[in-house]
């Protein structure tokens, strides 16, 4: 069975589709002859040009959700299309907050399994997916054994987005069937937290802190260094678990994948949990007092030293340079 049609779940960002959406469209284009997108929101039409440019011919538009969380209505609309005979061979879903909700709902609705934490796809008779294991030291290749569609949840930065020069996708409404009690959660209010500088998963420089910082107040050093380098501040799971910084800062297996030009790991030992989220960075600088810390095995420059001394000195030096 060749792979003829792929759906990509398209998410809207501040201006147009999110970067991971374009990454998935680019990959889908190279694997399948027909690529279609599924999107939701009050202004899906504004996404059609960009989605088309990156390979989608059609956008299935679930429309405005009226404050509902996307998981149930979007998955229901997709399941309805599939039951109606519009069955793709594979569905690519970004590993985001909403993407995972939609994937889980769709999986249970269709009684089809999901493959998650995908970082690569291999096209053959059927589509196989690649997954990093044990901190990325092993790559596991997996595939679905049953009938499609295969649902793949894919991590950001797994592919490079490239324009295909396609025309705007045609927008086709996708109806949400009766969903019952499962669709009862409603967003009452949205809070946008002030953020200075680039997003963690889009920044060219990421500075992350870990348990070696000693206490929560020292995370300010990470934020200051990130700001001086026009980068974003990240964190290891240990300090997120400890409640020092919110989950949205977490880099790693259970967190975000980052691939910046420079990654600066401060007081992070480099558990496999963390390595899998950052070892794709172009250049890695590690500062840690334990010479045996695994983070040094992936570092291009490793400073065996005390973050409480090196970080303030580094901040001073950068300030002095202006």
């Amino acid at each position, binding site marked *: 069975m060749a792979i003829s049609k792929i759906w990509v779940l398209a998410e809207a960002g501040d201006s147009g589709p999110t970067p991971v959406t374009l990454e998935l469209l680019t990959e889908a284009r190279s694997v399948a002859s027909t690529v279609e997108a599924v999107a939701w929101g009050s202004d899906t039409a504004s996404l059609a040009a960009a989605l088309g440019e990156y390979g989608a011919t059609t956008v299935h538009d679930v429309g405005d959700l009226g404050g509902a969380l996307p998981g*149930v209505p979007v*998955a229901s609309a997709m399941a309805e299309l599939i039951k109606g005979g519009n069955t793709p061979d594979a569905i690519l879903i970004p590993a985001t*907050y909403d993407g*995972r*909700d939609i*994937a*889980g*709902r769709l*999986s*249970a*609705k269709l009684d089809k*399994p*999901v493959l*998650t*934490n995908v970082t690569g796809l291999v096209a053959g008779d059927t589509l*196989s997916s690649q997954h990093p294991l044990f901190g990325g*030291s*092993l790559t*596991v290749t*997996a*595939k679905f*054994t049953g009938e499609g569609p295969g649902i793949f*949840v894919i991590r950001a930065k797994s592919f490079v987005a490239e324009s295909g020069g396609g025309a705007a996708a045609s927008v086709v409404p996708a109806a949400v069937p009766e969903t*019952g009690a*499962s*669709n*009862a959660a*409603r*967003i*009452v209010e*949205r*809070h946008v*937290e002030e953020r200075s500088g680039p997003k963690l998963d889009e920044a060219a420089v990421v500075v992350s802190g870990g348990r070696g910082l000693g206490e929560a107040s020292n995370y300010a050093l990470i934020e200051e260094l990130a700001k001086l*380098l026009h980068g974003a501040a990240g964190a290891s*799971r240990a300090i*997120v678990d400890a*409640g*020092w910084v*919110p*989950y949205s800062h977490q880099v790693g297996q*259970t967190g975000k994948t980052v691939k910046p*030009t420079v990654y*600066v790991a401060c007081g992070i030992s480099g558990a496999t*949990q963390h390595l899998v989220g950052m070892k794709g960075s172009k*250049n*890695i600088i590690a500062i840690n007092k334990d*010479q045996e810390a695994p983070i040094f095995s*992936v*570092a291009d420059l*490793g*400073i*065996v*030293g*005390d973050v409480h*001394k*090196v970080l303030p*000195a*580094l901040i*001073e*030096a950068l300030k002095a340079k202006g």
Partner: protein
Amino acid sequence: MNVVVCVKQIPDPAAPSALDPGTKTLVRTGKLIMDDSDNYGVEMALQLAGGEGDKVTLVSMAPGGETSGLRTGLAMGAADAILVSDDALAGSDALGTAKVLAAAIKRANPDLIVMATESTDGYTGTLPVQVAELLGLPSVTFAKSIAVDGSSVKVERQTEAGYDEVTCPLPAVVTVTAGVVEPRYPSFKGIMAAKSKPVDQLTVADLGLDASQVGQAGSGQEITEVTEAEARSAGEIVVDEGDGAQRVVAFLEQLKVI
């Protein structure tokens, strides 16, 4: 209010992990512990269901009748537990596991089901929503905080941009991120009491599930290959002699970042 917390009993993440060369699934031998991620769910549930007549029940699926991880949650203060253990469950994928947990949760008839956003060892992150769909319940994932208000729950849900305030009628499934509450340490009294708290052990047949839907038999996916990933070449590691910061500055200059 009855609250169910799904807890996963996993091999100690600090111990070296391995794949079974035959089945290519994670080796799960030795003593299992309660996943650290579940500490937050258990703590949250205990805080929400701390009143008269409230109850927290743990639900888990694990091989070999394993209860050592469950005892941790019971020692923290959960009243009882349901454990599904059956040889037929080996090799279950997330959807198969969700079917088992959903069937077990039904028995506790909860008002609220709390889970971690994802486990430390499997980290598919889809299971809670699969359970919610199988139970026909709404779900709110990635909760930073949960407050029960009569027959509904108010949740602050993590988003890319900040957070959303979400309301949802009960019963519902809510997943919590780590770090949202400070998990209590079991007291000595709690640890002693946990030893005699009831753990209802069930099989696939007890749950009325078809064995072909779960375990390896029901898993719709297989691992075809395991390869060594390309290792990063070793870099320069220097001991800070007071020049560490300058070394970093020089490296950043070389990369033209500054």
